[in-house]
């Protein structure tokens, strides 16, 4: 019973048969003439819209749309760390990732659940190698990510990492390189980049991969893989993701340049 919110009934359910999309056993439609459901080729990603500076109150912000996935990210900092956390020579990154309650097909709770906490950790791990934290003693940089619409959880995470890195650059935090992230799902033993929700499948042999990379240095900062796969397929998938990361990096640089040109 959350006292600080307007209360509805104790429990509520979604009426049948609307939940069937999430039921196991949904099989992705087969390739037709080499193209996927949305007309894309297997290695294509959805068009990206990336804008910085939309949140005027934050030190830096980025808003990204990949197809129907919409993610907003704000960066506050560097700011002073709380006294209780003690002295630290290195700066710290703190991230809070949250799906809006209406972002997914099934309504989410207001409180963060374990998946959102896990994603927060992933974002911190993906971005930490790229930030020059030794230049920010006793400071913390706060990253807040809100997913406004979720069209594919793996691609949501990739979009969040990309947006967070762009927002950090917009905030002027010193970094070695931008971090671009791409996602990829396996279906029926063939890899498909940037899968939206309709193409997700839970059948045996399904797997997905999220890869975060610093493109200029060629260093992978984070790799998250779920599901069974063999090594040959995985290395092909990783290479495919790295190619996509280079394209995403170009988009990030373009939007940052545009924003700084607009400011002058």
């Amino acid at each position, binding site marked *: 019973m*959350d006292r*600080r*919110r*307007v*209360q*509805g*009934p*104790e*429990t*509520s*359910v*979604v*009426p*049948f*048969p*609307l939940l069937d999309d999430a039921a196991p056993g949904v099989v992705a439609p087969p390739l037709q003439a080499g193209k996927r459901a949305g007309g894309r080729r297997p290695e294509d990603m959805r068009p990206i819209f990336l804008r910085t500076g*939309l*949140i*005027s*109150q*934050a030190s830096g912000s980025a808003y990204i749309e990949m197809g*129907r996935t*919409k993610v*907003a990210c*704000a960066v*506050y900092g560097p700011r002073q760390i709380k006294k209780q956390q003690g002295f630290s020579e290195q700066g710290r990154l703190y991230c*809070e990732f*949250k799906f*809006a*309650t*209406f*972002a*997914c*097909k099934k*309504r989410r709770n*207001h409180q963060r659940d374990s998946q959102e906490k896990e994603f927060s950790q992933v974002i911190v791990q993906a971005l930490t190698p790229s930030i020059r934290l030794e230049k920010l003693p006793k400071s913390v940089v*706060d990253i*807040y*990510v*809100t997913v*406004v*619409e*979720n*069209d594919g959880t793996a691609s949501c995470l990739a979009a969040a990492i990309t947006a967070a890195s762009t927002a950090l650059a917009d905030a002027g935090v010193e970094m070695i390189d931008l971090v671009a992230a791409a996602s990829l799902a396996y279906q029926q033993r063939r890899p498909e980049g940037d899968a939206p929700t309709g193409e997700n499948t839970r059948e045996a042999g399904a797997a997905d991969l999220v890869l975060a990379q610093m493109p200029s240095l060629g260093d992978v900062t984070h790799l998250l893989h779920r599901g069974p796969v063999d090594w040959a397929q995985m290395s092909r998938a990783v290479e495919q993701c790295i190619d996509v990361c280079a394209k995403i990096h170009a988009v990030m640089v373009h939007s940052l340049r545009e924003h700084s040109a607009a400011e002058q």
Partner: protein
Amino acid sequence: MTSPYAFSAETFKRVQPSEYYRKFLEQDVRPDGRAFSQFRKTILNAGCISTANGSAVVRIGDTTVVCGIKAEVAEPTLDQPAAGYFVPNVELGPLCSAKFRPGPPGDLAQVVSERLRKLSEEYIAFEELCIEPEQAAWVVYADLVCLNHDGNVLDACQLALLAALKNARLPEAQIGEDGIVRAGEAFTRAITIKRPILAATFGLYEGRSLLADPNASEEPLLDSLVTVCVDDAEHLHAVWKSNGGRCSLEQLQRCVELARIRFTELSALLESSAADQ
């Protein structure tokens, strides 16, 4: 040689915000260039989120609010067996401003949520949200997320809420013999809104100057905040005055006049966005 006490404008604004503001008001203008009774540019975009039953994004100046409507089914309460539920909640998280801390909703978010709920009793047809009396009723969750807080969150929230409700579509639902509610495939049923009600917020500076739509830098300097909610038949549905300054009846009536003008502007915006879908 410049006097050692001369500041640049930025420094002056930081060190003496009230004086800085007063200097602008003496010239009959506000720091962002608006006239006293001018509202900021308002943009409305409805139906942008496909995972929600209804949605809208509102920008008033820099203040950005996203509203998403999700509908689920529950048993009605014992004292109102033929009425559905409407649950609005506003989230003012650390994303939108440095003033808010992570965690449960703070004071401002709770007050805004309560005001939206109170106002909703005037325009939501609760009886039409009932599926089967005493057994099943729709619960309409309206969650508003503020993406950027630059003052005057209540106006933006009410506009986003109304636009999202107009945009929302529920499936046709029936309760079966087994007590399970089933819904059709198509989302055709709209949520009935008895009358459109919109809010307009004003601030009073030093008890004299009436300023429309205060932004985040102006709000702490104002000694009163007045919110007026009007509908299309020129009736009032709520008048709230907070912060400890004094306000005369004439100032209140002036707020009502300006709120009516604002209502006409905003309802034109609502109509054009509804027509776009």
